[in-house]
């Protein structure tokens, strides 16, 4: 089955700023891979439950206890930009 991928939309969802050539390259490669991957659809899984996880564990919790946080200086040192104890990023666009 031919797989039609809106590659620009997928790249947008994944926040990957790719050029048109890059996009069409990936589109072709993904088509090949997905053609192979689509074989999962031919497999009869009638009545089979999905497995999200190899473990059959449940209820892995932690008690509500405060543990030490990181040193802010050490954290901010790793950041591309910071100011007054905050991480600094360019402005949002989304609101009018």
């Amino acid at each position, binding site marked *: 089955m031919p797989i039609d991928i809106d590659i620009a939309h997928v790249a947008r969802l994944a926040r*990957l700023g790719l050029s048109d050539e890059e996009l069409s390259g990936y589109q072709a490669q993904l088509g090949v891979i997905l053609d192979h991957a689509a074989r999962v659809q031919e497999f009869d899984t009638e009545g089979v439950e999905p497995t999200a996880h*190899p473990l059959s564990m449940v209820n892995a919790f932690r008690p509500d206890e405060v543990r030490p946080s990181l040193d802010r200086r050490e954290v901010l040192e790793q950041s*591309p930009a910071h100011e007054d104890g905050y991480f600094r990023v360019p402005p949002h666009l989304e609101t009018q």
Partner: protein
Amino acid sequence: MSYHSLSDASAALRDGSVTSRELTDAALDRASKTEAELHAYLTLDHDGARQSADAADAAFAAGRDSGPFQGIPVAIKDNLVTRGIETTAASQILAGYIPPYDGTAVARLKAQGAVITGKTNLDEFAMGSSTENSAFGPTRNPWNTNRVPGGSSGGSAVAVAAGSALVGLGSDTGGSIRQPAALCGVVGMKPTYGLVSRYGLIAFASSLDQIGPITRTVEDSVAALETLAGHDPLDATSYRGDVPDFRVGFDDGVAGLTIGVVRQLSGEGFEAGVEAAFRRTVDLLSEAGARVVEVSLPSLDVSLSAYYLIAPAECSANLARFDGVRYGLRHDGPTVEEMMTATRADGFGPEVIRRILLGTYALSAGYYDAFYGQAQKVRTKVIQDFEAAYEQADVLVSPTAPTTAFEVGSKTQEPLSMYLSDICTIPSNLAGDPAISVPVGLDDAGLPIGFQVMAPALGEAVMFRVARAVERAVAFEQRPPMLEVWS
């Protein structure tokens, strides 16, 4: 001076015939001679290693013994975070990143007084089977430097094979420990999912990733797993039961055990040399008293397709955090959205981008059921197939990889053919079961061949027992020829 294994070195440290400083200097010296050609390491921590070695020697002198890793040089795959040591997962997006904490596996090694030699190369974010997808250049196979070492834990496998560490830590999502171990002639094992904490492992595919050791011997693999395994409250998927005794019957041989040969893992696509070595080993096990049966894993073929949906889907979310906001690379832009978009496109290599796109697509509206949802059902089938096979056999065996080490650059243009080379190792990740690769010989080109032993969940003891029997029966003792030059 050279010690073959962790257990040799560990004994020598304790009888005073060597110091940790001597072992460590020897490993670093080996690295300084081989790295230009092999590039196993992304970071060598000479100073830190020597300090740890001296601390270990002081501990021995004071009569303190924290366990088998005290004073042992260990190489850590660079997707395991190490406090104070640059950790990049071989990606530009993390170039220069210094983590403020140690992952649990690293912390357990350090608690025993292990010496961290440095951080080893890998396919970017562990995505690959050749260690060619590193943003900082490929690693080469010490048996033949025109060949890949396998991947993604290629750096750790090479460090152990080349003697610049006695033990390497790797991570295995679809074979990333076992396949490079096979291609480099060393032992690599992936534990039962949940047995070793993933805390501090930079996630590729969370439901498949496991940390495990790359060693020279099966005995060392057991010792390493004994150190690494155990519940970790920082990992909700960490196994909470008692860690089983991995040494039950370890030296008892295979008499009385049933070995299942997986029918689908032979024939087309498998090199003759690989098949021959595999058959020879099965015969040796049979001669040693094992009953050999053929078993079938009908879903095996389609399991590869499932894997190449599940792993990218999980990675598409796991790698979303690399956005230029809090750490790592940033490419500035007029808005935060443009900053993120530019940062990610520049920071990730093509294989990573390919998988993120694939996973994003497989999860997106309208495709989830057909791709991701269906793949999760196939996963159930794989588990059921394994369960049925384990009713007939105590362990399953196969070649670790269909081929020996391929030439650098030979598959990079064809992602799908690279993916297909993981066919033997992927099923154990989907099932969450343990598996180990043991070297069993060389092909005509002098390249190592690995033999894989798979066992049911928490069946490490029987897996090690069979692996140990293979190791004894085969007595693989060759070393990469290039090492002769420097030894």
